């Protein structure tokens, strides 16, 4: 069984609320960081239960920062876990976070889930992530929910925003005159965009223009 599921099922510490299929996604994208001195930023503290879960999962060298808008969350700090109070949609607050935490390897956005919040956090934190970092945004089903300013496609939702990045991932192959389609910082740093029900995971890597390679003997 997935270690996170085991932890979750035996959890008698602070409350954790998740969709059940998230654990496998975390494991898939986060496993390579276990046991390392990974720096994690989670937006949305709620009851502090998932911060405790990350601490157990990543191990004693992990450094975990929780961000929340509710000042009461500050009291959930413990060893390896720091809490910062602020608005995930506020670029100035996020600039302060970048300054205070020069290295972040994993961002988990489980904050307020509105379009504005998800987009502002991504735009202000993604480029700050370390070179092979991971940015995971959860509950992206709100991209379809009016209450969070979502809707079906074309409403400039977070899912729509991520879809535009798929084009940027391909921009090294741009040919001829394609207004608006250019190699960007995203082209140079996004290795993959991974979609699941309600979760989007962006994996970073230093990308260069791809090369065609060949070996072996022609058959004709």
């Amino acid at each position: 069984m997935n270690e996170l599921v085991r932890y979750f099922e035996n959890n008698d510490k602070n409350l954790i609320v998740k969709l059940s299929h998230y654990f496998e996604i975390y494991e898939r994208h986060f496993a390579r960081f276990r046991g390392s001195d990974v720096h994690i930023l989670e937006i949305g503290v709620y009851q502090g239960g998932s911060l405790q879960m990350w601490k157990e999962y990543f191990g004693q060298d992990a450094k975990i920062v929780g961000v929340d808008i509710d000042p009461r969350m500050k009291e959930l700090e413990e060893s390896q876990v720091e809490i910062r109070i602020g608005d995930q949609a506020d670029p100035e607050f996020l600039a302060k976070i970048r300054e205070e935490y020069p290295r972040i390897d994993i961002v988990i956005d489980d904050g307020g889930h509105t379009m504005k919040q998800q987009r502002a956090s991504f735009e202000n934190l993604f480029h700050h992530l370390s070179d092979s970092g991971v940015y995971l945004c959860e509950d992206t089903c709100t991209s379809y929910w009016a209450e969070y300013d979502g809707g079906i496609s074309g409403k400039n939702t977070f899912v729509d925003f991520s879809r535009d990045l798929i084009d940027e991932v391909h921009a090294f192959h741009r040919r001829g005159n394609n207004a608006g389609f250019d190699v960007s910082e995203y082209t140079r740093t996004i290795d993959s965009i991974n979609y699941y029900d309600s979760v989007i995971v962006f994996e970073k890597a230093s990308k260069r223009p791809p090369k065609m390679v060949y070996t072996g003997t022609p058959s004709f």
Partner: protein
Amino acid sequence: MSDLQKYFRTNRKRLITKWDHYFEIYDRHFKRYRDREVTVLEIGVSHGGSLQMWKHYFGSRARIFGIDINPAVQGYVESQIELIVGDQEDRSFLRGLRERLPEIDIVIDDGGHTMSQQVTTFEEIFPYISKDGIYLCEDTHTSYWGRFGGGYKKEASFIEYMKLKIDELNAFSGSKHNKNLEVTDFTRTAKSMHFYDSIVIVEKGIRRKPTTVRAGRRVLS
């Protein structure tokens, strides 16, 4: 370096042509099938080198099928490798494959790379691969190239087609508060979608409506 890269670098058998970053992506998604009884279907055989690479990579229990429009590929038959000649844009040919082939676990579309070929092949083949199988389409940068029927933001491109599938992937959760979103066969059978430079992957899995789970004690009201 992955075993695939090692194989590629020392390859003296049939010619393989790939983009250099593909090997790591293949290994990441395919390695769970190594040394298993896996059935692999590659569309687009070219010189036959990648079929030999898959045979080496997946091991002695793998069955590898290559499809190509060029009848000359029939000459590449060897143990574990079978060839079928046909057009990946021809729906009746693709439907006929269901009768001719065992259940497929992995599909690699490295065929003609036009929009119509990629979309047609996906539509016909995806529903019939095994329940935890993998569909990989490569050279999807042709979605941005006019001579393949693509173009930036062009609705008919394979990338734009796949972008809309993201909505279907989210339909269990999304439709909770959005009546315009419908649960489809794709929603019920696709577990994840992965977009890389020039590669799109869909992983299958049997899915149900996600459930919220809770554990632990409430510390703040």
